[in-house]
């Protein structure tokens, strides 16, 4: 069958770095094609080349038909209505070119029902949950009569139920003969819905072929470029099991309450302990971390570090007391894109590194050098702009930023989200190491494996309240699910 999209020998270089090196890729009509690779492997660049955002330095692209893309972050307009977003730029018209609002709203409502979204389409898009917004983006992308739909990490912010809806939609698209390029780090998803896979590594294509016959371990080893035995000996994550915790908790957060988001959550962490927060999206995991670090106004509750009460609603005070938080969204809450890697790392520790308000360059350089080496951050120089790094390396820069503040308690909200397998393993190993050195860690992750392997103890949240606490033998997926299912009223 003639491919609907064909890329031949594409090379793309940014500032001397080869993001794509002679990559070829072809997509058959109606197939679901997985595109995998570590961060920095060239996936994002390839997508941008496919969609015309970047012009390749050399090579050819032949597309037959319309390509539509859904990005990891929702690229819509939050203040406009759901319906306006779906039909943005191609609004149904009445006479004199006036927008036919009635038709637009009814069409949008009908369309979105197919995607499991039953809501007033006149609401501003921003009032929907992130998962629902993602669905709207998908509905929009597909409704332009695309022949190819590219999905970049579409499930990263979806709840399990929404993932099922997404897969149903993908099944329908498949039947209609629409080809899909599916980018994801989640193995289960890939094996469930994709027929073929293309693996990229360091900007080169290392494999294309049917997915079903390809053992998972082999796929991972191709992505990482390591031998199979190597990986098996390490297990699924880079965590190495239990840590020896101190006896007295260094962090004691009691009855944290904030509106309808947190209803009296208590958390204790001992030095050297990793405590995981489990729960579905919106269960209050992120809010708990934000409350501890003073980024969420509280109507009740106290935070004690080393027995001393931390003033509320003051991030700087929490940091001085020894609590730092790696926020969930790297791009909007983490990196400062215009600044260099050096300045991003030392940002939170500036008071320590300056005297009389003057910043000491030498001390900065020493610290930055230490962390770049220790976290193995890939940079051409500390002066490189942080925006030029891959996701995994940006995440390491942020980890370095918080480690510079010499915290006693580190709150990690989705520390490995959206980063490649290799960087993920490195970050996990680092968290392990830090706990061994006596740091108290609060770990939030949507990945069950990461929580079960990484945490010594799990606190299960639901609707802003603690519904279970698991340790030792109970650290299994079944127990977590049972805790979530049993606690509180179900919607």
């Amino acid at each position, binding site marked *: 069958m003639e491919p609907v999209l064909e890329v031949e020998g594409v090379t793309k270089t940014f500032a001397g770095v080869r993001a794509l090196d002679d990559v070829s890729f072809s997509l058959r009509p109606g197939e679901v094609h997985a595109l995998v690779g570590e961060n920095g492997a060239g996936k994002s660049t390839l997508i941008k080349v496919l969609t015309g955002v970047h012009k*390749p330095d050399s090579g050819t692209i032949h597309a037959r038909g319309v390509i539509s893309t859904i990005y990891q972050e929702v690229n819509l307009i939050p203040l406009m209505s759901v319906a306006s977003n779906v039909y943005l730029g191609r609004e149904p018209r009445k006479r004199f070119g006036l927008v036919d609002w009635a038709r637009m709203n009814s069409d949008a409502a009908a369309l979105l029902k197919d995607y499991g979204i039953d809501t007033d389409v006149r609401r501003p898009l921003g009032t929907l949950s992130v998962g629902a917004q993602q669905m709207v983006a998908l509905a929009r992308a597909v409704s332009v009569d695309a022949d190819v739909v590219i999905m970049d990490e579409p499930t990263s912010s979806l709840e399990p139920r929404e993932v099922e809806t997404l897969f149903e939609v993908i099944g329908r698209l498949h039947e209609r003969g629409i080809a899909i390029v599916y980018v994801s780090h989640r193995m289960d998803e890939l094996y469930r819905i994709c027929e073929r896979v293309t693996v990229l590594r360091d900007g080169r294509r290392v494999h294309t072929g049917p997915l079903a016959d390809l053992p998972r371990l082999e796929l991972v080893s191709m992505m990482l470029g390591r031998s199979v035995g190597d990986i098996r000996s390490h297990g699924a994550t880079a965590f190495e099991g239990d840590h020896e915790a101190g006896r007295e908790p260094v962090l004691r957060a009691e009855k944290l309450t904030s509106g309808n988001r947190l209803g009296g959550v208590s958390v204790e962490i001992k030095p050297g302990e990793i405590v995981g927060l489990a729960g579905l999206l919106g269960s209050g995991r992120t809010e708990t971390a934000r409350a501890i670090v003073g980024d969420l106004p509280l109507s009740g509750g106290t935070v004690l570090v080393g027995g001393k009460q931390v003033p509320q609603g003051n991030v*700087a005070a929490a940091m*001085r007391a020894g609590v730092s938080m790696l*926020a969930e969204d790297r791009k909007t809450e983490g990196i*400062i894109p215009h600044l260099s890697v050096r*300045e991003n790392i030392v*940002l939170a520790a*500036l008071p320590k590194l300056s005297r009389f308000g003057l910043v000491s360059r030498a001390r900065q350089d020493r610290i930055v050098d230490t962390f770049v080496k220790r976290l193995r951050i890939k940079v051409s120089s500390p002066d490189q702009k942080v925006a030029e790094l891959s996701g995994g390396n940006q995440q390491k820069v942020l980890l370095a930023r918080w480690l510079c503040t010499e915290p006693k308690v580190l709150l990690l909200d989705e520390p490995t989200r959206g980063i490649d397998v290799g960087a993920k393993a490195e970050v996990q190993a680092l968290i392990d190491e830090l706990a061994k050195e006596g740091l108290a860690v609060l770990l939030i992750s949507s990945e069950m494996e990461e929580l079960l392997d990484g945490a010594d103890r799990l606190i299960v949240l639901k609707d802003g309240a603690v519904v279970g606490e698991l340790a030792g033998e109970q650290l299994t997926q079944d127990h977590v699910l049972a805790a979530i299912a049993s606690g509180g009223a179900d919607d």
Partner: protein
Amino acid sequence: MTDTAKTVDRTRVARWLQEYGVYVAVVALVLFNIAFTANFLTVGNFRTQLIQAAPVLVVALGMALVIGTEGVDLSVGAVMALSAALVPLYLGAGTLPAVAVALAAGLAAGTLNGVLVAKVGIQPIVATLALLVGGRGLALVLADGQLIQLHDPDFLALGNGEVLGIPVSVLIAAVLAVLVAALVGKTAFGRRLVAIGGNRRASVLAGLPVNRVLIGVYAICGLLAALAGVLSTARLGAGDPADAGLLMELSAITAVVVGGTPLTGGRVRILGTVMGVLLMQLVRATLIKHNLPDSTAQMIQAAIIVGAVYVARERSSR
């Protein structure tokens, strides 16, 4: 292929233009004037140009800081008018007290802007618009709507005096440019300012004193505007609250933008700002010397602004 090469070239050219365009333009204008303008290469002419540019530069330095935080200060012209109104009122007590009162007023006005922006959370353009309107009104009330001639020789020396052959106002502007550049590049305050402009949410989470820095930035901008008001009042030899600093906010923003500081914040270019001020001054001087009316000069300035913003746009859309 050739198409690709062209696009790459164009973005590269645009980026290069944003970085260095203002320097090239200044050099080109100077060369043009040396060749075609009578009496351009004279000490007297250079003095005039620099004296005229000095107050604009003082204001633009503060404006560059504010723009670096993703803000803007529309009230600088009104703050200059306040200076023009206050100096004659207190000059009887001596030059120093009069200048001190004017500067204190500027500092207070800037702090007010900062509080409105940082604590109350009003958008900078709206918060400073209030003072743009109200400030000049207050200045006119203070001065009773009058232009007041000044005769205090100490004070007038700020406008006409010189040290080692360099006009005092030019000297002050130059020293301030060096100080502000050091503030941005070398101090924790400066680095925080840039970080806040680059990503405010991340700065909050990094425990930076965001409100304090923002208030500080607007306060400095107000202080510098007040100083510019003092300098231009001394130069004129009269307190003229109706005309002092009129449209100065636009000249300052223009200089900053032409100098390559993006309006989206996160970056401050002080040397670029200096060059931006000189460029706009040279453009006006060149056109006037070649007997083109002021209206033409304005249109050419507009074209330069559009060009600078266009170049900046090309860069950010990468």
